[in-house]
């Protein structure tokens, strides 16, 4: 039987009601389709008893906070934006190891949510966790591929109980639910974005400057691939972004020696994120991306490469 979003929606709403009861809850949204769907379901289930929170970690996409607020407003959900970028950059300074980064981010998120929950007298945290999040976080015989911030990154002690209505779903099923909920297309069709944000697109240590560089590079990749798909040159990939590599190489800019970082462009075809294939981007589109990144970010980047790895052996994001 194919997945029935309508049946799922009615079951999820009664399950959220049964779990949370008369208590209050907060829900963390990131602007991705998973947490947006969870927020709409929670709002329908709990009405005024749920508060929707967006934590701005400073590691979000370009203009993210404003976009999320307006798209979710159109879906009937009011979002409170909490600026916490200083907190996140401070906690992440000097950390290069990907698993450490993810765990610090997970723990900081909970820290912010706990403050919020206390204010709201909320005892539940609703999350848009989906199947790949807990699968890849590992447990028992299952190896930890990466600790998703909302599962493997949770601190051992938490002052809130969890409610995760989308735990059994994969991304393609979440999108079907989003469409059935009539979420705006910019939410339901939005490409996935990792919970730890740009932190996992900066290899090695993180700082504000690197975050700014990779944010701009991601925006260029998004703009150019979306343009190419509108022009019919290719299908819009399932996920597409830039990764800032800690590798410096020699270049020449205006007859002057340059020594800058490398950006890897990643674009993949997938259905559920559990297997993926590198997209076949037409050469002229790749050239255009390369030109724009090296020109617009010339202070930082003088080389652009394309990642052709499938999942497996790679994963979609680099960390």
């Amino acid at each position, binding site marked *: 039987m194919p997945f029935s979003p309508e049946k799922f929606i009615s079951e*999820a709403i009664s*399950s959220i009601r049964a779990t949370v009861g008369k208590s209050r809850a907060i829900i963390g949204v990131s602007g991705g389709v998973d947490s947006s769907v969870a927020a709409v379901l929670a709002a329908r289930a709990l009405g005024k008893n749920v508060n929707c929170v967006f934590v701005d970690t400073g590691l979000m996409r370009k203009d993210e906070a404003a976009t999320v607020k307006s798209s979710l407003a159109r879906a009937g959900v009011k979002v409170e934006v909490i600026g916490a970028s200083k907190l996140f950059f401070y906690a992440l300074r000097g950390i290069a190891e990907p698993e450490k980064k993810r765990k610090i981010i997970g723990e900081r998120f909970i820290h912010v949510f706990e403050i919020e929950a206390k204010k709201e007298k909320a005892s539940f945290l609703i999350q848009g966790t989906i199947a790949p999040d807990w*699968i*890849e976080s590992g*447990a028992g015989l*299952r*190896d930890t591929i990466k600790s998703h911030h909302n599962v493997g990154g949770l601190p051992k002690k938490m002052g809130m109980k969890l409610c995760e209505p989308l735990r059994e779903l994969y991304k393609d099923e979440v999108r079907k639910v989003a469409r059935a909920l009539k979420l705006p297309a910019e939410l339901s069709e939005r490409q996935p974005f990792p919970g730890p944000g740009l932190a996992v697109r900066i290899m090695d240590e993180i700082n504000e400057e690197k975050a700014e560089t990779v944010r701009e590079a991601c925006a260029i990749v998004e703009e150019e691939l979306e343009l190419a798909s509108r022009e019919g040159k290719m299908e819009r990939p399932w996920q597409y972004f830039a990764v800032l590599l800690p590798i410096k190489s020699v270049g020449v800019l205006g007859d002057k020696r340059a020594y800058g970082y490398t950006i890897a462009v990643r674009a993949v075809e997938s259905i*559920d994120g*559990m297997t993926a*294939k590198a997209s076949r981007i037409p050469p002229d589109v790749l050239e255009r991306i390369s030109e724009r990144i090296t020109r617009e970010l010339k202070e930082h980047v003088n080389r652009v490469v394309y990642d052709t790895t499938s999942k497996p052996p790679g994963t979609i994001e680099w960390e």
Partner: protein
Amino acid sequence: MERLSGSQEKPWRGYFSGCPCMKVLIVDFGSQWTHRIHRTLKYLDVESQIIPVTTPVKNILPADALILSGGAIRVGLGDASQVGNARKYLDKFQGPIMGICAGQQFIGLHFGGKAQPCKVPEFGKVELFIDEHNDLFEGLPDKFTVWASHNDDVVGTPGFKVLAHSKDASNEAFKSESRPIYGCLFHPEVEHTEHGSEIYANFLKIVKK
């Protein structure tokens, strides 16, 4: 909503008792794709439950079929000791069994084959050549693309017939000649494998017999 039956955390409570439908248990060797097997079966209208390898043998006996998932364990390098009661399942359970990846290697090893590191491991896209179209690959083309993720394989299992191969793996799929036991080294449960759902449907046809 009750937690769907796929959740690995849900302890065994005789989920299937009283249910007239087909009962498939997925023995979880810890694959990234164990839950994908559950989803594939669900889309084929078959309810299944993912169970840990520590599940007592008496609890698995009422099932109509077993599927042994893949996993990070390397059964040929001594990790077979980590699979709890799975050896007993192979000895005591007489219904249809299918092993995937590490599950296939475990079956082959248990019945006397040699599980070993492959000369060339396969990650991602692999071209599969079907040698025997009989039950498992019935109605499928002679060759198609599948997705794999393995360091090891299993060869020379007495009483087992190879059903498919690839350029680098001589045993991509096999079946027992005396019992309804099957194995695939590749992963029919992932989206990038062509005809994957048909392979599970063919296995379910064998279960219905």
